[in-house]
């Protein structure tokens, strides 16, 4: 059992939870994630460790409501407990001084991007960040990203904040303007697909952090498999970060939809329960 110690609302659908987990806080590095099970009936879902406080023995997760589990989690209040949490999992981000790094985050993908931006900055890189979302209230962690970036460009689909346009347009502007040595892209699958095509066009080495469906998160089930460079890899143990230009995004997007019907049923059932209360 892990205790929630504090909670912050970033937007209506995005919540940040600070959770007691001393061992994980100590062991984690940028790029790592945890598997979380809210209660005895819950499923196990992966969430990136957005930051950690080793002195307090806590980690912070930033969670977007999309289905049953993420909604149960975002409903937790300080003092309440998460039934199971295990980690840190996955391979840590490879951090070095590349020169200039273009860091792109879409939606809640900005949360897993934050520790990477921080690590890259501390390794001496010049970091230019592009954060994008559908509208202003979905832009999260702007100040934190600013703290570790030399420059931040904000893009919204509806133009309610920053520039109006897609993440790829913001990326193009920067790529046209200066030499980029490395790029990191994290966000929804479809955003990563198109953002990766942009960097590929310009021959910029790029890393993406994939968010496949997972069950155990320890390499035991294969639910998280993706094709990278024509080979099947497990995101939970081989990743979650991969060379963006080798990933078969279409296959990944297809697999993400694999449980749509079942998830919709669970979600409807959950809504029913909540409505009854």
């Amino acid at each position, binding site marked *: 059992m892990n205790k929630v110690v504090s909670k912050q609302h970033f937007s209506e659908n995005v919540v940040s939870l600070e959770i007691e987990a001393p*061992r*994980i806080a100590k*062991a984690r590095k940028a790029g790592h994630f945890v598997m979380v*099970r809210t209660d005895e*009936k*819950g*499923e*196990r879902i992966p969430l990136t460790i957005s930051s950690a406080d080793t002195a307090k023995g806590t980690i912070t997760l930033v969670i977007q409501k999309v289905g*049953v*589990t993420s909604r149960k989690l975002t409903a937790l209040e300080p003092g309440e407990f998460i*039934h*199971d*949490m*295990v*980690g*840190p*999992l996955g391979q840590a981000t490879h951090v070095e001084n590349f020169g200039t790094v273009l860091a792109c985050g879409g939606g809640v993908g900005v949360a897993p991007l934050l520790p990477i931006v921080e690590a890259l900055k501390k390794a001496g890189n010049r970091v230019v960040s592009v954060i994008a979302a559908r509208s202003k209230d979905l832009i999260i962690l702007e100040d934190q990203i600013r703290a570790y970036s030399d420059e931040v460009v904000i893009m919204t689909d509806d133009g309610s904040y920053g520039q109006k346009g897609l993440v790829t347009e913001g990326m193009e502007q920067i790529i046209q303007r200066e030499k980029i040595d490395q790029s990191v892209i994290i966000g929804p699958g479809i955003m990563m697909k198109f953002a990766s095509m942009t960097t590929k066009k310009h021959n910029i080495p790029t890393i993406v952090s994939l968010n496949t469906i997972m*069950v*155990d998160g*320890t*390499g*035991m*089930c*294969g*639910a998280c*498999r*993706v*094709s990278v460079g024509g080979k*099947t890899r497990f995101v939970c*143990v081989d990743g979650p970060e991969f060379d963006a230009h080798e990933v078969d995004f279409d*296959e990944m997007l*297809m*697999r993400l*939809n*694999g*449980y749509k019907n*079942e*998830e919709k*049923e*669970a979600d409807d059932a959950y809504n029913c329960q909540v409505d009854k209360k």
Partner: protein
Amino acid sequence: TDLTRVKMPEAPARERARSYVEVNSGLTPEQAINEASRCIDCANPTCISGCPVGINIPKFIKNIERGEFLDAARTLKETNALPAVCGRVCPQEKQCEASCFYQVKMNREPVAIGYLERFAADFEQSGGEISIPEVAAANGTKVAVVGSGPAGLAFAGDMAKFGYDVHILEALHEIGGVLKYGIPEFRLPNGVVDVEIESLRKMGVQFETNFIVGKTATIQELREEGFKGFFVGSGAGLPRFMNIPGENLVGILSSNEYLTRVNLMGASTQGMDTPVMRGKNVVVIGGGNTAMDSVRTALRLGADKATIIYRRSLEEMPARVEEVKHAQEEGVEFLTLNNPVEYIGDDKGRVKQIRVQKMELGEPDQSGRRSPVPVEGSEYIIDADTVVVSVGVSPNPLIPQSLPDLKVSRWGTLVVDEETFQTSIPDVFAGGDIVRGGATVILAMGDGRKAAASMHQYLQGQ
């Protein structure tokens, strides 16, 4: 010796194939006593040499014959920490029963050692009077067990008996390894495993779930926290795929994923959040216990049709004979001497068909089994909406990844001394599937026990 072997009472095939009721219902006391009387208490009981943990088989059976069922359970527990589990899942026909006098000398059906073992263990469990093995005075030495499968549990039981402060660290949120996440309820109810785990708890063994050694903390960090010895029983958890076209389509999953969703996450139970694909036409690839468990689970999840595709013939199937028989009774179809070569999807990327190739048996390979050879031009297509791939597992790489000095074989298994189960790192011992590749519950337990004995010696010598 003219009595015939007892038949295990079973739930009717048609009913059980749609429910999670345990298939084998267990012997009645009369049946058990009768069966026990078949054992002639051989002067040289060859059966014992067939049991990897060396249970004193005639002794426990004679206890049953005399109606002293609790004594029988106690005898079992002298050498086997999980008799209720082994009585259910051991491939007895290849182990103890294969070496029984009846089988070896008279070519008659062996004494039903497994059924009797289960009977005695269940009797004890149902009476609520569980005997807890005696534990030596605490010696204050901390040892850590990586993984709570049968290897780790057996090791922990013996170390607790020696007086050690034993901590089992388990990656998942449940204790039991494959016994929990793999083997289904209809064959091994989780409640049975839990009772046996509870016994270990009473002996002082401590359990910590959600702890991945090598990730949550390294062996070195645990050393610094005072652990003096480590036993790695981390199992062979990585599913293998065949790397054929279309294998990543939606609706194709490993047996580990399929069984984990159902057994560990309770996907088939109302009110649980984890979903599972409920195919109507489910095809399972493989011929081991895992394949049988998957295909029978498919029926229980409501499949109209459940089929096994296996590349050799029925005789070569590695699954327990009883599981194959049960699967047949329940209506599973067997496409033996067939092998998938490609999966074909619909426009949403979900599997709809399998291209299958016929096989024939060629010369025996190193394992003595005749190896399958594809028949040229024999390919044909069958329909399937869900495919479960059950073609084996590889050793879990987490521990070797975090301990670079650990000696590992070409197949990723840990290299240990055959006698002592010590790895190339002196305070690290290992056993079970992480050493053997995929094996059996009882072999894993045997390893755990031997490793405990030699770690005890090693730590005494320190």
